Every structure is written in structure tokens, then in C-alpha cells.
């Protein structure tokens, strides 16, 4: 066991990112796909914070990127859930196969 540093956090965030990608590829339910996207966004945030702390500790750019990503993720989740609920009303299901009917 080593003292955890930048590489450990990069390992953690890469693992989290690819777990999210796996969920995105295998799930066919829109809400669970949204959860996978949240995992991916969180891994990106973790990366920004880790680089900010270990490589450029005197600057705060990574921290602000994380803050803005969190705000955009909240807006994105709200819009996605509104679309999902609208889709459920018209199709009684939230399978991703029905989502292509949204264009008509």
C-alpha cells in the first residue's frame, strides 16, 4: 500500500468513468442511462480537482471548472427528466427504443 497521491485519484476517476460508460452501453432505460451520465460527469470533476490540487495548487481554475460543471449537470438532469416524463406520457414506457419517435 502506497501513500495515495495523484495517480491513485486518476485511477479512481478513470475507473468511475468507464463504469459509467459500461452502464451507458448496456442499459436501455432512459433514467438509468441518465444515472450513468452523472457518474461520468463526477469522474471528470474528480479529475479537475485532483489536477488542481497536485499540479497547480496555487491556481483555482480546476475548482471553478468543477463548480460550473456541477451547475450545468443540474440543469441537464432537470431538462432530461422533463423530456423523459413527457415521453412516458405519450408512450407509457421510457425505453430508449421509443425515444426516436420524439422527432416526429
Amino acid at each position, binding site marked *: *500500500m502506497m*501513500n*495515495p497521491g495523484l*495517480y*491513485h*485519484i486518476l*485511477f*479512481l476517476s*478513470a*475507473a*468511475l468513468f*468507464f*463504469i*459509467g*460508460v*459500461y*452502464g451507458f*452501453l*448496456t*442499459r*436501455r*432505460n432512459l*433514467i*438509468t442511462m*441518465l*444515472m*450513468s451520465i*452523472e*457518474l461520468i460527469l*463526477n469522474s471528470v*470533476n*474528480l479529475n479537475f*480537482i*485532483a489536477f488542481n*490540487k*497536485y*499540479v497547480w*495548487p*496555487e491556481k*483555482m481554475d480546476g*475548482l*471553478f471548472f468543477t*463548480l*460550473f460543471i*456541477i*451547475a*450545468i*449537470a*443540474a*440543469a*441537464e438532469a*432537470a*431538462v432530461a*427528466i*422533463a*423530456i423523459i*416524463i*413527457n415521453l412516458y*406520457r405519450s408512450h407509457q414506457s*421510457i425505453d430508449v427504443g421509443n425515444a426516436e419517435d420524439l422527432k416526429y
Partner: protein
Amino acid sequence: MITGSTIIFYLLAALTLTCALLSVSTRQIFRAAIYLLFSLIGIAGIYFWLQYEFIAAVQIVVYVGGIVVLIIFSIFLTQQAGEKLAKQKLDRKIFSALAVFCGFALTMLQVYQHNFNNAATTSAPTVADIGRKMLNVDQEGYALPFEVISMLLLAAMVGCIVIALRSKPETK
């Protein structure tokens, strides 16, 4: 030399990864949401461990308190109780796992080959530093993105209301 901080880091990382894995693999959607919640709490713990307390607080308030609750409500609105998700085809699972594993191996190979110039860690920025920088209109300030984000949140709110509004029945 194993210190308490090391043990806490590994515990938090294990919690985060285990809950994330369970969240993408369980077949009950409500449990997936709860596992996602614990995974996000684990990430907030890692922010605390890195001494970025403000980000950790924002993570708990926005993700755990906002987004996960929103997801749980939308599950209540769209899912019948006790219904399991449809089983996925085995070949799709295998190919996804293979692709994900290859991507992960490639990424970690690149990361370990690269040598980051570690700076001496200074103290983490305080909330006063963050606030001063966020509302700074100088070259290095973040006042403009801050305002743009507020407009984005307003637009998202209006968009959600318009999209989710129940349209009036056509017959009179």
C-alpha cells in the same frame, strides 16, 4: 507506513467504486438510484479528503440533495412498483465490458507513462478566495461565466416547465 488518512482514502475509493458498479448492474431501478446516491457521497468524501471542503459541500447539496432526489421522483412517476428492468443480451454485456476494459487499460497505460510535475501542495483555497475570484471582473475573474451560468439555469428552468407542461385536451 500506513496512516489513518491512507486507510480513509482506500475506504472511500472502495465505497465509491463498489456502489457505482452495483448502480450500473442492478436490475431494480430504485436500488440503482440508491447505489448512485452512496457513490456520490463517496466522491464527496474524497473531496473532503483532498481538503476541498467547499466543493464537497456543493457536491452533497446539488448532487445528493438535488439530482438524486429528482431521479428518485422521476422513477416514482414512470415505473410500476416491483417491476424489474428487462434483462440485457449477454453478447451486448460482454462486448461492452470488453470495450470498457480496453479503454480503461489504454487510459491507465497513458497516465502511468506520463510524468506529472508534482508541485508542493499548499493549503487548499478557502471559501473567501473562491468568492473573491468568482465575482472578480478582472482578466482572471470568473464573473462572466458566473452570469452565463445563471442565464443557463433560468433557460433550463423555463425549458423544463414548457416541456413537461401537460398540453390541454383538444376536444372542447
